[in-house]
């Protein structure tokens, strides 16, 4: 779109000084030595008190990773990463595991407070928020606190950090870990298998509707630290869960790596709704610093009539490389992907989804909205495929891009692969400017050019915002405003 001149100027001026999560927290931390080798893998495993099978799994992954090459196909450019120049484990120092919130370092609680995430249950219950959200807070490499555990337990829901799950529910972890994203899936996923430090584990038993929204907040605090978290969500037959994920990091001059793996398993008639608001530090106005967000997210609709829905609002990170996908294995299963990707400054986004139709009567829907400003590059990359036996597979894809200013880029790279005659795929993509008529109409009614643009952009992303749970929709809207301040709101 052609933005009015002032918009372009203002967007240009706008940089990550607007990034309000750029503070650091001074904490004593426990760190592994810098570098990446088998000893570090053993160190992490030992630090977490993991059983032998887990260590073997990690070492196997690490050995495989060493034989792999970094993928080059994405439309992102960055200097080669020196994997030995990073810390793979950093944990806030503590004497014993916190039993209650009072045992948690107040500095950490303060950090989350600054981020606007209420960890104290009583605060939540006192009506800070209208509905209850259980939160798992991950600080650098480890999970520091999980709220509402007791109440969830009553419903039979397991919501804990993955390290606890490895100890307490080894059978479930053994059965499902790596079953959706195999160890050798891709370069960063394999690296994650070797060095992941924490993340969330969710298990919803048969026929249970999770009584509240589950949420994880990821925070990278330490310098030179890579964050490798692992999330595993299992929805048993007929269950339902909605899971939210938020991410922030302080401002740093150097690039930090975040390589997460998220695995979702939905069995018969189960539904998982996974929402992300990603706001990692995007780097400064000259493109210095920022998080490399190389994430593998995949859901497996393993059972008949299951459903997995991904919703993401991507505003942060220097580089995003992320394709939340659905494997539609069960008959009549459904996959959804709703995405807003906003890029500004020197951000590079290469994101999209994969919908792999394997079962009969499977359906999928992709709605992607990309907004690029500044000198950023925003790419949608998505794959839809129907295999031989995917009779009556259906997909609808819509990806739209808006450009603000003439120095940014918006790209669309869809892959549609059909091997079944009865599969019907429809794909449409547009890149167009905001209509002058619309702008004129709004301005005639007394709105400034900025307000008019904001209104139209809000309309542009509305389809996706509607998919977010209430708690996040407000935050997401605000985020988009911050990311594009000057042109939006």
């Amino acid at each position, binding site marked *: 779109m052609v933005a009015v001149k002032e918009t372009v100027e203002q967007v240009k001026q706008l940089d990550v000084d607007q990034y309000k999560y750029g503070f650091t927290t001074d904490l004593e931390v426990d760190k592994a030595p810098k570098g990446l080798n088998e000893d570090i893998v053993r160190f992490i495993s030992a630090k977490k008190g993991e059983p032998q099978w887990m260590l073997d799994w990690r070492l196997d992954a690490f050995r495989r990773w060493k034989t792999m090459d970094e993928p080059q196909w994405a439309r992102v450019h960055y200097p080669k990463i020196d994997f030995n120049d990073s810390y793979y484990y950093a944990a806030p120092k503590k004497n014993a595991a916190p039993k209650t919130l009072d045992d948690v370092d107040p500095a950490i609680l303060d950090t989350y407070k600054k981020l606007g995430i209420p960890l104290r249950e009583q605060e939540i219950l006192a009506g800070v928020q209208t509905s209850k959200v259980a939160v798992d807070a991950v600080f650098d490499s480890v999970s520091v606190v999980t709220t509402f555990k007791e109440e969830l337990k009553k419903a039979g829901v397991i919501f804990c950090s993955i390290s606890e799950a490895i100890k307490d529910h080894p059978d479930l972890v053994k059965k499902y870990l790596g079953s959706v994203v195999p160890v050798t899936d891709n370069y960063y996923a394999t690296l994650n298998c070797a060095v992941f430090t924490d993340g969330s584990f969710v298990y919803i038993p048969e026929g249970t509707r999770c009584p509240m929204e589950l949420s994880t907040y990821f925070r990278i605090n330490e310098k030179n630290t890579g964050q490798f978290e692992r999330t595993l969500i299992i929805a048993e037959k007929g269950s339902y869960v909605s899971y939210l994920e938020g991410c922030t990091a302080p401002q740093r001059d150097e690039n930090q790596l975040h390589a997460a793996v998220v695995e979702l398993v939905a069995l018969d008639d189960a539904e998982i709704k996974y929402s992300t608001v990603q706001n990692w530090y995007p780097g400064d106005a000259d493109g210095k610093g920022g998080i490399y967000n190389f994430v593998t997210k995949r859901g497996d609709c393993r059972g008949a009539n299951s459903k997995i829905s991904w919703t993401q609002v991507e505003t942060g990170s220097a580089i995003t490389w992320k394709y939340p996908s659905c494997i539609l294995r069960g008959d009549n299963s459904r996959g959804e992907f709703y995405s807003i990707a906003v890029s500004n400054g020197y951000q590079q986004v290469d994101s999209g989804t994969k919908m792999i139709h394997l079962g009969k009567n499977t359906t999928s829907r992709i709605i992607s909205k990309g907004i690029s400003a500044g000198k950023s590059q925003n790419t949608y990359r998505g794959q839809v495929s129907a295999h031989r036996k995917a009779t009556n597979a259906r997909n609808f894809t819509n990806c739209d891009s808006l450009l603000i200013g*003439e120095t940014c880029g918006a790209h669309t790279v869809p892959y549609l692969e059909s091997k*079944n005659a009865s599969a019907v795929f429809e*794909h449409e*993509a547009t890149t167009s400017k905001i209509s002058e008529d619309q702008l004129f109409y709004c301005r005639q009614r007394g709105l400034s050019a900025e307000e008019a643009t904001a209104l139209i952009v809000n309309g542009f992303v509305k389809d996706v915002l509607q998919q977010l749970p209430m708690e996040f929709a407000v935050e997401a809207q605000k985020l988009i405003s911050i990311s594009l301040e000057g042109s939006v709101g």
Partner: protein
Amino acid sequence: MSNITPLKTEVEQALIAQGAGIAPDRKAAFERFLESGLPHRRVEAYHYTDLRALLKSAPPPAKAGGKVSVISPLADIDADIITLVDGRYEASLSSTPPKGVSVKMATTLADDGSAQKSVLSSDPVIALNAAFSDSALDIAIDAKTELVKPLIIRLVTTAAHASYPRVRVTVGDHAKAFIVESHEGGVAGALIDSVLEVRMGDHVAFDHLRLNVTDRAATVLTSFGGAMGKESLYRGHNFVVGGALSRHQIFFRFEGEQSKAEISSASLLNKKQHADSTLVVDHAVPECQSREFFAHVLDDESIGVFQGKIIVRPGAQQTDGKMMSRAIVLEDGATMNNKPELEIFADDVACGHGATVGALDEDLLFYLRARGLPKAEAEALMLQAFVGEALESIEHDGIRDVLEALAEQWLKARSA
């Protein structure tokens, strides 16, 4: 694992052996090919057409033109004819060029440092052509020349060898022409790797049809590179029924403002045919318009590939680009791979693409059958209409009729 350099395939080794005695001026091109080797599925542009896996043999380059026995489907068209047999110009089968057109053999390579080189050289199939093509044909259409009759370039393959035809066309300002590139002949084991480069001036109207009616056992790799000046019109058409393994590349670049390109294509595939249509439309300057329409009909176990990319360069404002790909998959064994891409670096543009894959519309079929048409005929009728959409932009009635007849023949063979 992936960081271990894969061994050269037998085909690659054969090509390397053939390239040993290559003329010095073609060494660079050959080395360019060697650098990448045969493209495979990890090479993004060849993701769906893995030549390393699909190319079964590297036949020796053709020595001299063989005897032509095939009759062109365009034989009855009143046209000027230029014939290349096994990659070489054959005067006895060519007509005298019309006024304003000169045809001459060139011994220097296409690698002459012209701007067009950058459109073409990055592709390994084109590099292979440049390495092995020992004669190029230069066709010059003078400024202000308006050709009344189409100029048909027949590229005939006579035996199981490799041919590397290369044709370079320059179209002067204000000229008007229709060039047909007709790929004919071929047998099992034949490899055709052709390149047609067209440099168009300003205020040009240029039509181009690429017809692939080669033997259904041949391997056909064809590349078209076009660059166009200002206020011109390019209309490109593709029609594919031949070839066991084929790839049809189009690299088109706008170099002058306010020009327009319309590109359409129809591919009818069955049995185990694999046909790839790859298109790059490069809007390097502002205010140009492009329209692309690609249709695929896939029967049996055939594989259709469409890769289309619209690039809008920085500063190419007011670009208007629309790309559409439609495919009908008739059998569960058939595969369609679609990759319509947009790459946009300017903000004041209107670009879009659409892609659909599906079976024939059940409701329409029912409607036709309810009116007494047998299933096969009803399907044929619908497919004919579907393919017709891609052919209707061909202005030359006679040639359009020939293509429609070829499509009809294909449909008849299907229902028989």
